[in-house]
């Protein structure tokens, strides 16, 4: 057998008739690795195709380095050769290649998965609707389970640690004060500036005190606190519970007979229902202060005058409506965070999705609840 001197860095081969009739011999030379531009199995079979040949054998005296690409090629040769009634004789290959080929050849043929047919539009629509319906049912179930757990807690029979409640109160209350302060002062300032521009057209700039006070105390204080805290703490709840789900911590609560709804969800919901109205009052106060800073500086109003107008404009009902808003938001945000965390799947990506959907769900439910409460107040004339 004669051939040109092989380059040790590339794959090359030579075909010669074998010792026995019906056998063709493939001599492998040089490197057969991921980087050596190996020929494909089909090309090799075509090159060795001879009339009357039934067996393909190998010689490897001049084979240099090889990696797992060589056994992969031999596996493919075996599969393709079977279709052409060609037997592949592995005896001439290095023992390592033979071992790997044997290891990679499954003893039983793997069950072929059914070919995936693309769904029709109607099927997709149906599936999406069913998913949506399931999701709504899940929300209702979660709401029910939370209510039951809260009722058990009020009766004193729930498994809730007082420490957890206090920890959550600190987390969503005291620790949130700086960001709530900043946002509510700025919102008050913005309302005052915009209000002055409009009211000046009628020469009644003094009413800017009424405008800021009513809008902050009745709605915007609660809404701003809700949105800020949904991003700050609602997402943290979802990520925390989601990670607990991934680490099987929630499972270990369940097997100990501790209902996660009571142990994890109740402290959060209670803490939020308590702290949101307090934060809302704080935000109302700072929002009015922000408006006053603008009123005093831009309109040269007297501080006392501004406060008197504010007092005259705001009724107890306004304050109560604001507090109802904020308590509802608190419960909604806490439940959205917990729901998204509890239904998280077991992967890093799912935890991220849980945090994102907690924020989206909180903000959507805040807006929806605001519309509903405002409409009800309108009808009742509050």
């Amino acid at each position, binding site marked *: 057998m004669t051939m040109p001197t092989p380059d040790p860095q590339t794959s090359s081969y030579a075909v010669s008739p074998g010792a026995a009739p019906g056998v063709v011999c493939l001599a492998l030379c040089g490197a057969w*690795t*991921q*980087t050596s531009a190996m020929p494909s199995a089909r090309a090799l079979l075509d090159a060795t195709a001879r009339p009357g040949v039934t067996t393909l054998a190998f010689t490897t005296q001049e084979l240099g380095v090889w*990696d*797992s*690409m060589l*056994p*992969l090629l031999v*596996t*493919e040769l075996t599969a393709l050769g079977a279709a052409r009634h060609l037997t592949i004789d592995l005896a001439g290959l290095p*023992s*390592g*290649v033979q*071992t*790997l080929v044997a*290891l*990679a*050849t*499954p003893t039983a043929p*793997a*069950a*072929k*998965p059914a070919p995936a047919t693309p769904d029709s539009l109607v099927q997709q629509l149906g599936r999406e609707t069913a998913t949506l319906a399931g999701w709504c049912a899940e929300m209702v179930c979660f709401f029910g389970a939370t209510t039951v757990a809260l009722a058990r807690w009020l009766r004193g029979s729930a498994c809730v640690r007082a420490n957890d409640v206090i920890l959550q109160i600190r987390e969503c209350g005291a620790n949130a004060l700086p960001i709530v302060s900043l946002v509510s002062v700025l919102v008050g300032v913005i309302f005052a500036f915009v209000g002055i521009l409009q009211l000046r057209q009628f020469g009644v700039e003094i009413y800017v005190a009424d405008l800021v006070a009513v809008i902050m105390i009745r709605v915007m204080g609660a809404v701003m606190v809700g949105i800020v805290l949904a991003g700050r703490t609602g997402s943290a709840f979802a990520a925390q519970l989601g990670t607990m789900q991934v680490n099987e911590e929630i499972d270990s609560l369940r097997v100990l007979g501790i209902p996660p709804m009571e142990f994890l969800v109740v402290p959060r919901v209670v803490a939020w229902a308590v702290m949101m109205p307090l934060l809302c009052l704080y935000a109302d106060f700072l929002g009015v202060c922000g408006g006053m800073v603008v009123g005093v500086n831009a309109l040269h109003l007297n501080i006392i005058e501004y406060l008197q107008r504010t007092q005259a404009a705001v009724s107890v009902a306004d304050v109560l409506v604001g507090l109802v808003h904020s308590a509802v938001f608190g419960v909604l945000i806490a439940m959205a965070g917990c729901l998204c965390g509890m239904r998280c*799947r*077991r*992967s*890093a*990506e*799912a935890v991220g999705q849980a945090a994102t959907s907690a924020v989206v769900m909180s903000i959507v439910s805040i807006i929806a609840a605001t519309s509903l409460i405002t409409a009800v107040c309108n009808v009742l004339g509050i």
Partner: protein
Amino acid sequence: MTTGATCIQVSDLTMAYGTRVIMRDLNFAVRRGEVFIIMGGSGCGKSTLLRHMIGLVPPAHGHVVVNGVDMWCGPEAERERQLRRCGVLFQSGGLWSSMTLGENVALPLQQYTTLSARAIADVVAFKLALMGLTGCEQLYPSELSGGMQKRAGLARALALDPDLLFCDEPSAGLDPVSARNLDDLIVTLSRSLGTTVVVVTHDLASIFAIGTTAIYLDNQTHTIIAEGNPAVLRDTCAQAAVRLFLQGGRAHGDTH
């Protein structure tokens, strides 16, 4: 199994977290083709030593030289090129949970080879078939048992046909039969492909089944107190602690 030239040289290595020294004055060499065992009691720093050898943690003092390249004194590019020739099987598999098994094994190939997408798919299918995971490309890690996750982790570690394979506690969390099968798989693959294997373990069955050379990290003296073939160490080591460890904690010295 014949052993060849030195491929990892650890010299005067001191490992520390802040001021707390874990191990000091570690000196050993791993030779090509060996199955090198790092053993020792729980919490003695076996896994930390492995993390030093694969360049995840810088040494407090000393050098780790892999295939002639100092992992911490040379240029960054050289270190990364070297790491590409190392495969690592992490204790819990370390599979990326948001990718399928196929994507997990394909990522190193896409990153570091010029193979076509079709060729990569073939290689991925072959590597998974070697591990007995034929047809599992579309499954996510969370859908697998612990043993399957380990084997999938091994498939990913071997995706680039590394010269060096590091395994952190390969048999931890597996039943004895699965553990033995995984050990056999590691040895078969490494012998067939000529890979050098470094295994961190305290599983005696693995140590005797696959280890050709072992070092023992001692909790008390914070350094290596024995090096050699595990079976020989068990019978003849001068250090009582090593004999006790290798005899499975039974205190009598001469029987096993």
